[in-house]
Every structure is written in structure tokens, then in C-alpha cells.
């Protein structure tokens, strides 16, 4: 049985841990609020962008000279996965969930005989995937040390992807990230970026504009698309990074809340144990004294 001193030491150490997890929970809650506000602020732009892209893309997708970013290379051989995770851990299953999704995707694609390349955004994803798929990783990007992720950071990622597309290094590009549903739920999501997914129905019937007005374009559709598509790519990545950040803090908050509660339980158990041991020691001493006195 552990001595009283040992028990006291353990209780103190768990108490310290609880203080730390509680502080981390508080910090995560504060940062979550900020990250959530940022993610919400970015939403209108992404929504309007989608609307414009839908009307524009439908008109151009069926023409022969449509840009690669919209219709892809016409092949389906090399897949690029952009995996967005956090830079830090201590957030429950947050990073592992995306990592696991990525791993399943890579395995499935390779089983079909496709070539997979991985671009990781965030330190943890890189660390997770390097173990099994080091040879597939073509790049690692982190936003470590940044207070908040700016649009220009996401743009840099998009530029990287665009360059790879222009070099013909992949045919299909998907984005894997944790979608922020609410504070406790983050959904690992697999979203296709290239070829750009167009809303259903419009692809098959581009001429049937119906109630939607026919737009005039200035400059021509192709020129607008040439600037709009890279921008759309950047905004999708930006949104994923923001959602992932918000999700990370949500997940960390939940994880730290659990940790705090568990530490509390543990302290209770240890304290009980400590008191029992103390009581046992006292009883033992009393017995010794009494039996000693009787012997005299």
C-alpha cells in the first residue's frame, strides 16, 4: 500500500494538473469565440462566390476550352489531398479524426490503383501521416506562431495548389478538414476542389437558365473565370482553415473540460484512499499501544 507521503504527493500533482486543464479550457473558450466570429465573418463572401461561380460555371463548363480548374484534366489518375489539421494537440480526437479519414482515403485510392499526393496544412496532420505515408507527402504548411489566419495565408496555399495543377502534377484535388458543426461536434469532411463541383442540374442543363437572368460579362466569361477560380480555391481553403480552427478550439475545450472533471474524480478517489490509509495507520498504532499496555 502506498505511503501517506506518496498519496499526498499524487493528490498535489493531480490538483496541479486540474488547474492547468481548467486554465486551458478557459483559454480555448475565449479563443473559440474569436475563431467562430472569424469563421462566420467569412461566410457571406464564400456564399456569394458560390452563387456567381454556379451561374458562370454552368455557362462555360460545357464549352471545349473550359479551364482545368473547373473541369479538371479529364483524367482521374493522380489525386492530391489537402489535409487541414491543427498545429497543436491536446484536443481530444480532433487531429486523429481527420488523420484517420485521410488514411482511409489514401488506402482506398491506392487500392484502386491511383497515385496519391498529400499536402498537409497544420503540424499535427503532417506528424500523423508521416508515419505511414511519408513518401506521398509533397508539402507541409503550418500557420504556427500566427495569432490568426489571414486570407493571404490561405491564398498562399491556393497558389501552391494552382502551380501544381499547372505543372500537371495531379488530376483531382480534395480538401480534408474538420467541419465545425457546434462546439462538441466536428465532422471530418472530404470536399472536392478540382474539378469544381457545380450544383447539380445546372451542369446537365446549362441552357435552361429559367428564372435566372442571363448575365452580361465584362470582360468575357473565360477571363472572369480565370481570375475567379483561383480565388474560389483560396476562399474554400480559407473557409476550411477557419472552420478547422474553430473546431479545434471547440474540441480542445471539450477535451479539457473532460480532463478537468476526470482530475476532480481522481482527486476524490485519492483523498478517500489517503484518509483510509491514515485511519488504518492510527488504528494500527492504537492496537499496538493497547496490546503493549496489556502485556505489561
Amino acid at each position, binding site marked *: 500500500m502506498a505511503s501517506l507521503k506518496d498519496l499526498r504527493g499524487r493528490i498535489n500533482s493531480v490538483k496541479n494538473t486540474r488547474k492547468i486543464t481548467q486554465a486551458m479550457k478557459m483559454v480555448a473558450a475565449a479563443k473559440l469565440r474569436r475563431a467562430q466570429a472569424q469563421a462566420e465573418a467569412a461566410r457571406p*463572401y464564400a456564399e456569394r462566390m458560390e*452563387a456567381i461561380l454556379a451561374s458562370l460555371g454552368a455557362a462555360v463548363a460545357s464549352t471545349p476550352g473550359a479551364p482545368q480548374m473547373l473541369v479538371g484534366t479529364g483524367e482521374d489518375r493522380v489525386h492530391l489531398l489537402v489535409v487541414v489539421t491543427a498545429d497543436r494537440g491536446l484536443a481530444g480526437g480532433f487531429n486523429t479524426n481527420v488523420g484517420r479519414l485521410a488514411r482511409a482515403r489514401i488506402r482506398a485510392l491506392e487500392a484502386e490503383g491511383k497515385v496519391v499526393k498529400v499536402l498537409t496544412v497544420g503540424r499535427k496532420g503532417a506528424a500523423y501521416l508521416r508515419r505511414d505515408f511519408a513518401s506521398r507527402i509533397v508539402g507541409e504548411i503550418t500557420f504556427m506562431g500566427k495569432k490568426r489566419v489571414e486570407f493571404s495565408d490561405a491564398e498562399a496555399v491556393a497558389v501552391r495548389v494552382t502551380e501544381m495543377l499547372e505543372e500537371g502534377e495531379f488530376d483531382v484535388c480534395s480538401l480534408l478538414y474538420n467541419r465545425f458543426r457546434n462546439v462538441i461536434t466536428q465532422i471530418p469532411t472530404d470536399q472536392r476542389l478540382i474539378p469544381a463541383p457545380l450544383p447539380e442540374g445546372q451542369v446537365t442543363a446549362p441552357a435552361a437558365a429559367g428564372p435566372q*437572368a442571363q448575365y452580361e460579362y*465584362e470582360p468575357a466569361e473565360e477571363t472572369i473565370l480565370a481570375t475567379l477560380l483561383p480565388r474560389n480555391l483560396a476562399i474554400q481553403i480559407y473557409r476550411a482553415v477557419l472552420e478547422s480552427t474553430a473546431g479545434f478550439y471547440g474540441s480542445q475545450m471539450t477535451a479539457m473540460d473532460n480532463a478537468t472533471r476526470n482530475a476532480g474524480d481522481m482527486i476524490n478517489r485519492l483523498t478517500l484512499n489517503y484518509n483510509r490509509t491514515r485511519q488504518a495507520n492510527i488504528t494500527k498504532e492504537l492496537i499496538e499501544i493497547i496490546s503493549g499496555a496489556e502485556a505489561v
Partner: protein
Amino acid sequence: MATFLLELVSPERLLLSRQVEMATIPAAEGEMGVLPGHAPMIVTLRGGIIRVRENGAETERLFVGGGFAEVSPERVTVLADEATPLANLSRAEAERRIAEAEAALREVTAEDTEVKRDAALERVLSARSMLDAAQAA
């Protein structure tokens, strides 16, 4: 007077969403004044100033660094790469950007694609218009 809904969004936030009488937007092929009932259009923007008219007076001036605008009879949606109210622009920042953009332009060689050259030139022009806008404020 008739109004339409003007929405100005940048990737980082929604800057403006309200009924206005007229908006002047810096379209790539020339300034464009938009009144209610305008024919539907999608245009690209160059760096310049968006002017907003409400109740017969110019109420807002914002610098945009480029982007897109979708015009329809009842609403105008401006997707700006970045947007700053004129009052918040700083000349030093604009000058720094011009220097940066010009350096980037010098690095572009004839071998690069046309798209790349255009983008670099576009950046310089956008930065210069930012300085103009800062001086106008």
C-alpha cells in the same frame, strides 16, 4: 428615389449591406455607375474607389483592391479582394505595397505565362490606385 441593395463583402467580413440609390464601382474596363434596375452583369474590378450615394448625397467611399461584382436589377454584390474605408487608408502602407508589387513585377520574365505577367502588373496598378485613394481621402 428608388434604391437597390448594395452588398460589399471581403473574404474576411461583410462590410456593407443596405439600400442605396447609386453606386460607382471601378470595373476592369472603366468606372461604372449603377442605378436601380441595371441590366444583370458580372464584372471584374480593378483597384479603385467604390462610391455610395444615399438620400442624394455621397455617403461612403471605400477602396477595393480588386475583385468581382454581380449586378442585377435589385441588387449589387461586390466581392472585393480587400476593402477599406477611405479614411482608414494609410499612405505609408500604399507606398510599401507599390514597392513590393514593383519588385515582384521586375522578377517576372518573358518566359512566364501571360496570366502571371498580367497578375503582376495588375498588382502594381492596384497598389498605385491605393495610393491615389489614400491621397484623395
